């Protein structure tokens, strides 16, 4: 046991639930992952993770937990239910999220008036099981999220693969829509859902989308090469997830080019996953940038 204690002191930033963070409660503010003792004299951590100190605010960041939404995040969700005037969406967060009818673009353009018929036809636009990309508009007091898809970038997703990863690994960057040079489009949802689709699907002509609002599921046949690229990318992202490597365009491309030495089905064999993960880490320039 002394081993763990001494090494624990080296990594003072690592704490476990119940560790006293400070006795000075007047000078520090209680952030996520902490709680005040019943006597209100001690601030303790409630999760296992790294201490994060921002000025007077003390937080403890656990390695993995359910997604906590923030305004402006790009996310991918699955429709669970069609309600009166809104869709109920699963976004991998603690509570279900909502996509109000008023927050989507309906066929016919942005400035169309919404009428009662729209409420009745909601299931025609999005039905249970559909995937949508959206942006978080409001985070409510209790943690529920309100989404919006007013921009034509967002909306229904038709052909592609969904990969689920730990939400903490999705690096928050300016852009979450990537047209990768390998010939596929990746949407990195901040909630840990990643969508991989052929390049044409995301760059469909805006004119056509104005008419349909993007609610028409395309049933074009995707060429074998494109399908192979998508599958390889999905395997690569799963490896990044398994080895807790931050997921963003550079890391995806690094591991993708490393994986080209192997067949697609080989790339998820444990030995090769290990090699690929190590190669990716070695080529990564900014390691440890883990927002």
């Amino acid at each position, binding site marked *: *046991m002394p081993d763990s204690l001494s*090494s624990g002191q080296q990594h003072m930033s690592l704490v*476990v639930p*119940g560790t006293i963070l400070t006795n000075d409660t007047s000078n520090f503010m209680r952030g996520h992952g902490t709680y005040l003792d019943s006597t209100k004299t001690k601030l303790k951590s409630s999760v296992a*993770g790294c201490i994060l100190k921002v000025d007077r605010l003390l937080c403890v960041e656990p390695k*993995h937990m*359910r997604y906590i939404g923030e305004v402006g995040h790009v996310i991918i969700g699955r429709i669970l239910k069609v309600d009166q005037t809104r869709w109920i969406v699963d976004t991998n967060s603690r509570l279900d999220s909502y996509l109000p009818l008023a927050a989507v673009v309906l066929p016919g353009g942005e400035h169309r008036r919404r009428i009662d018929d729209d409420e009745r036809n909601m299931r025609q636009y999005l039905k249970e099981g559909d995937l949508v990309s959206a942006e978080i508009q409001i985070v409510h007091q209790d943690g529920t999220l309100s989404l919006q898809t007013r921009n034509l970038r967002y909306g229904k997703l038709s052909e592609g693969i969904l990969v689920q990863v730990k939400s903490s690994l999705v690096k928050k960057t300016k852009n979450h829509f990537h047209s990768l040079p390998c010939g596929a489009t990746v949407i990195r949802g901040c909630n840990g859902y990643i969508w991989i689709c052929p390049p044409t699907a995301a760059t469909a002509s805006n004119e056509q989308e104005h008419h349909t609002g993007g609610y028409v599921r395309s049933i074009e046949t995707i060429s074998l090469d494109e399908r192979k690229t998508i599958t390889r990318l999905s395997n690569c992202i799963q490896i990044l997830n398994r080895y807790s*490597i*931050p997921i963003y365009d550079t890391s995806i491309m690094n591991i993708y080019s490393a994986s080209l030495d192997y067949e697609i089905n080989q790339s998820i064999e444990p030995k090769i996953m290990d090699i690929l993960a190590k190669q990716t880490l070695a080529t990564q320039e900014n390691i440890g940038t883990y927002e």
Partner: protein
Amino acid sequence: MDTSSTTMKTSTKNNLTSTSNMEHVAAFDLISVEGYRMDGRKSDELRQFRCLFNTMSDADGSCYLEHGNCKLLAMIYGPYEGRSNQEQAVITCDFSMTQYCVSERRLKTYGDLKSQKIQMSIQRVFQQAILTETYPKSQIDIYLKILQSDGNDYCPCVNATTLALINAGIPLKDFVCSSTVGNIQGKYIVDLNQQEEQQQTPKLTLTIMPQRNEIVSLSCESRVHAITYNDMLDSATNACQQLFSSMKQAVIEQLKTSLNLLHDN
């Protein structure tokens, strides 16, 4: 292991006829003259503790725990939107055993009185330990599966649930550690295994929050002298503290390996 346990049973049965020196003989069988127990442990020594995290990729948090011969899986699903509209998170627990976890194959693996009892107690213990008020309208499901049983199932279940909850990033007031202690021939032996558990001797099960020095649950189903009781409580607390340090070490190791991967090279 099997042969020794059967001989144990026969010897105690034979001793039932001469009740006067039964306890003495039973104790002699359990603790050798040199002070070692049947499995070679000292009286205050715990069984070997080993755990693995993230064993189930599907769950929000999971843990595989080996405590001596006891092997089990704990899985956490949630917090997700529950049906009730409560101010606090609702915690549910599902305990089940595999058919092959005991020496004789059992057909019914869940829903019996024993598993219901464990489910209820785990639920109550963690209702206290989890900061439920941070998760209104939510539900957290705990699933426990015994792969190999070794006497008391309750204690390893509590310990595995704690580790799985930490793995899931669910806020806890403190670790929750549970251990047993028995009194045999004036000796207090901690962390009883199946053979020791079957003896007709006083036993005590203690669950504590080690850093807060709080007792979460305590059960003692036999009559013991007040002095003996206090001593038993002391050694059970020590056992829980020992267990806490190995659990803490496991959690920190796990944190470090995942962070080292990021900072290496």
